[in-house]
């Protein structure tokens, strides 16, 4: 693995250099205390130290709202959408975010492959960056350390305020070709990055916990605080549910079919004509959300479908914490085990 | 000539809100001529009771959708006065821009959609789409731009979002303001001047009627007063806004859910014509040229000319908005947070010129920042007595005409005031009964 040193002050120049490959997407400030992935207009505006963006990187491949076709009501016909996909470099991406994209790849490839997602996804390059975990990150507990480099072409590791640049792939190598502000260096690992939030069990024990958690009292307690706003799932990088709607223009002659993100936490999500609702109560929906993250797909793929980004907790107005729910379930599970042993 | 006349116009059209005109003449003696307000009362003062200063402007802006920006501005000024909140120069400029946009919008709406059909003798603007499509399109274009100022600076033109006590929750982008400026100069200004031409052509249809009265508006040392100033009476001069109750002197009349006001005479006039009469010296050359073209002279006593004064203000607002945008940009747009830390609690009074005339809010806050007493006095309420006095003079002057013509003249008179009846019924100075 090649390793170089790079001064923090030279990062904007690196970004400009990457521009030769294509459009650059990187974290920017948004509002008072938030961040968002945006196309870079000015490399000095890119934020290198951020906790997490509001919406996950997923939005670049599966946009929150996306036109699927234009149609005419006069001729009852449609015009397909031409996707104009530019090569893109995703810059300053955290390891959990990269892992979420790899999981999404799996979801989008399973069954019939999701065409628009894949076309956007094909021409992308990823440059990782290390981060300091805040009170919400817990990715290590789901098997994703800060320095997890799978999926990245390049990785920026912060050491004493400046960076070490790791070259991880051939593509990564060609991205920095000709960039002169880097010097060969020895890899070092920063010491001061610890996760504040942890899940008490190793993640591969979680499906076991979920096996017996279906009727836990904990769901009702969580549901009593949840206001059903959907923020947790709408900001989740591995959620991908969507809705499709037709919009007609005022002329009533044409319109478009549009998809937009949906959320299984919303009361309407599983409702069908006639009012039958397959997950009518908040408690059913909260449970479904966590089973999707730690049981259903996990049973098949051996990985939790949660990457520990902390968004669902950080952006939940009710401050419902996913790792806290997990730890509560674990405690309950342990108690039950203990009870079993005593009884036996 | 001794004539019997009995006119009842039920639910007057093309005005905001519900009002009826009632005229009663027996043997040539005019017994009654008044505008009776039948809009259901909404009790805003009662609703404000106990509400926090964060909500006061949200609630009072719902007094009137047509003057929502005006109510909001006055409410904010009042709250800031009561709680001792200072605002920045940028906030002041952005508010003035909003007031210009709202005045521009409202005056266009009134001149083209509500008053112009009178001059052309049609029932609404809709037939004009066929006969005067370019005029209608021009009006729509101007209204759109005026509303866009509201949408961009305040989030939306009706019931604005971003103005809050102490400042704005979000600041427009420089590029957006420059685009507004471009459109003001390239679209609105030519359209405004065309409007002057159109109105000049229609001015012949304006009835020749004069009644000298007291004209009341704000007055400011440096500018044509809209956002701030002292109260000015054409009879007796300046009064501080704090003492607005000395000017308004409200009283209940039986024929109206809305109270009437009086100051030095039995009635007074507020609105564009009052502003013109009191402050026309502070208008730009272009605005004066427009006035002259349409035959509006300094000291005009014909209430029907209020519409013309509004058109003059359209020209003023377009040009002055450009000036404000230039200033905002020269100062550099800052992403300021609203200043919402009260430095005192108690009573505050605020006043703005809204399109229909001078508006007063008056709140008293407890030391948690909740309202304990509120009072709002709305322009249309202040004009009601003057409208009645005008009718009493006008009816005998036109008594020889047919009943239909008299009726239409009276409707036209009321409409010339651009009355906003929906908001004129919530204003009484009563303390809450604790």
């Amino acid at each position, binding site marked *: 693995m090649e390793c170089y040193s790079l001064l923090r002050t030279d990062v904007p120049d690196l970004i400009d250099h990457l521009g030769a490959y294509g459009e650059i997407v990187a974290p920017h400030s948004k509002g008072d205390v938030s961040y968002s992935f945006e196309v870079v207009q000015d490399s000095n505006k890119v934020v290198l130290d951020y906790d997490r963006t509001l919406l996950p990187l997923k939005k670049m491949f599966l946009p929150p709202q996306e036109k699927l*076709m234009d149609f005419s009501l006069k001729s009852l016909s449609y015009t397909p959408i031409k996707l104009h996909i530019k090569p893109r470099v995703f810059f300053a991406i955290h390891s959990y975010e990269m892992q979420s994209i790899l999981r999404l*790849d*799996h979801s989008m490839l399973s069954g019939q*492959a*999701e065409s628009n997602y894949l076309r956007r996804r094909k021409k992308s390059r990823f440059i990782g960056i290390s981060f300091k975990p805040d009170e919400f990150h817990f990715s290590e507990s789901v098997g994703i350390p800060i320095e997890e480099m799978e999926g990245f072409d390049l990785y920026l590791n912060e050491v004493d305020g400046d960076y070490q640049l790791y070259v991880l792939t051939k593509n990564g190598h060609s991205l920095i070709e000709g960039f002169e502000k880097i010097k060969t260096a020895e890899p070092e690992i920063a010491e001061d990055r610890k996760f504040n939030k942890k899940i008490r069990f190793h993640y591969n024990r979680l499906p076991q916990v979920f096996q017996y958690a279906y009727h836990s009292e904990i769901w009702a307690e969580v549901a009593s605080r949840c206001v059903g706003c959907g923020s947790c799932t709408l900001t989740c990088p591995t959620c991908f549910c969507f809705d499709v709607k037709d919009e007609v223009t005022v002329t009533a002659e044409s319109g478009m*079919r549009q998809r937009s993100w949906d959320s299984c936490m919303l009361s309407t999500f599983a409702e069908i004509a006639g009012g039958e609702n397959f997950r009518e109560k908040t408690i059913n929906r909260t449970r*479904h959300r966590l089973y999707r993250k730690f049981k259903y797909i996990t049973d098949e793929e051996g990985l939790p479908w949660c990457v520990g980004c902390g968004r669902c907790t950080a952006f939940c107005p009710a401050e419902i914490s996913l790792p806290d729910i997990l730890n509560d379930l674990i405690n309950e599970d342990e108690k039950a085990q203990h009870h079993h042993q005593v009884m036996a | 000539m001794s004539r019997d006349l009995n006119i009842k116009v039920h639910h007057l059209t093309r005005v905001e809100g519900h009002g009826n005109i009632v005229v009663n003449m027996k043997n040539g003696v005019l017994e009654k001529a008044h505008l009776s307000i039948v809009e259901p009362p909404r009790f805003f003062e009662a609703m404000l009771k106990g509400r926090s200063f964060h909500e006061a402007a949200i609630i009072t802006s719902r007094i009137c959708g047509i003057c929502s920006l005006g109510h909001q501005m006055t409410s904010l000024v009042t709250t800031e006065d009561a709680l001792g909140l200072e605002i920045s120069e940028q906030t002041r400029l952005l508010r003035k821009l909003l007031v210009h946009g709202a005045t521009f919008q409202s005056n266009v709406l009134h001149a083209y959609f509500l008053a112009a059909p009178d001059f052309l003798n049609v029932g609404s603007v809709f037939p004009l789409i066929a006969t005067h499509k370019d005029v209608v399109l021009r009006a729509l274009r101007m209204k759109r731009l005026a509303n866009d100022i509201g949408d961009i600076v305040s989030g939306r033109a009706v019931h604005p979002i971003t103005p809050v006590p102490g400042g704005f929750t979000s600041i427009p982008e420089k590029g957006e303001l420059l685009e507004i400026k471009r459109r003001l100069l390239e679209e609105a200004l030519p359209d405004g001047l065309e409007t002057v031409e159109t109105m000049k052509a229609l001015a012949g249809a304006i009835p020749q009627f004069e009644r000298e009265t007291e004209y009341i508006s704000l007055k400011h040392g440096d500018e044509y007063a809209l956002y701030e100033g002292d109260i000015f009476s054409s009879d007796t001069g300046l009064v501080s806004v704090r003492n607005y109750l000395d000017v308004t002197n409200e009283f209940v009349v039986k024929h109206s859910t809305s109270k009437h006001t009086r100051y030095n005479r039995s009635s007074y006039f507020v609105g564009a014509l009052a502003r013109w009469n009191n402050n026309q010296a502070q208008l730009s050359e272009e605005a004066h040229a427009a006035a002259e073209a349409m035959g509006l002279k300094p000291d005009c006593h014909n209430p029907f000319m209020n519409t013309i004064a509004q058109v003059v203000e359209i020209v003023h607002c377009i040009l002055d908005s450009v000036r404000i945008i230039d200033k905002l940009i020269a100062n550099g747009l800052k992403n300021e947070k609203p200043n919402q830390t009260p430095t005192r609690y108690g009573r505050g009074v605020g006043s703005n010129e809204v399109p229909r005339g001078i508006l007063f809010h008056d709140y008293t806050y407890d030391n948690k920042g909740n309202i304990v007493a509120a009072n709002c006095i709305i322009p249309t309420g202040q004009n009601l007595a003057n409208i009645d006095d005008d009718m009493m003079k006008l009816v005998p002057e036109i008594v020889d005409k047919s009943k239909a013509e008299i009726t239409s003249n009276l409707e036209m008179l009321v409409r010339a005031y651009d009355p906003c009846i929906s908001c004129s019924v919530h204003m009484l100075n009563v303390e809450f009964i604790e």
Partner: protein
Amino acid sequence: MKRIQDVSEEEIKDLYYPTMCKVTKARQITSMEKWYELEMPASQDLGHGPGQFVEVSAFGIGEAPISISSSPSQKGSFELCIRQVGTLTNVLKNYGEGDSIGIRGPFGTGYPMESLLGKDILIIAGGIGLVPLRSLIHYVLDKREEFGRLIILYGAKNPSELLFKEELSDWEARDDVELHLTVDQADDTWTGNTGVITTLIPELDLNLNMTIAAITGPPIMYKFVIMSLKSKQLQDDHIYVSLERRMKCGVGKCGHCQINGVYCCQDGPVFNYSDIKPLREAL
């Protein structure tokens, strides 16, 4: 885990564009249901199996999953039958001969026809549930000698809601079909059985090893029908159910149809009962 490198650009197929099909015949068959015969462009075949569905599309309104009601052995055209319950279905009511309807699909799993060969087929249909099962019935009838008995239990709320009345009397007349009808509420014209569909089950004389049951109906029906079949000792893996869920994409992406860990649109809508029995949200 599937990886992005596993697919090449060329393999990526568009998912959301409908094929415009011509309505060749259409008839309102009850007060609530309309039947349509459609033709694919250029005389293509839809290529479906019994139990599969298509996403039907009307521009300006949206899409809805609708079962294919005709047998795959019917060439050149296919049939749908749609109950008017909401926005889209009510707009489709106005579509008739000559109009174009957008179709995506066929989607989902059908019945595993290979393994049904030689078996006795027990059809249990409630209300509109007959629509998807009709595809299976026609298929069996078209290849009659390849199957054992064909027993059809069909229930509706009242006689006027019975679908495909002419076909019902055809089947009634055949001696290689055992048809049992019932209605919840009889009217003056009704001389048949009255009562919910489960009342027909106890009298059945089934060859347990040979019988495959296929059930489709309103959500509430499954539990009771399965209970009755179980009390007749029919094994779980001899029972197939077809489930209805909300669906948007039809291709396992939008998430709406998920039943615990499975997607109704991809893993279903036809499920072997033994596979979904452990799923708590299924029935």
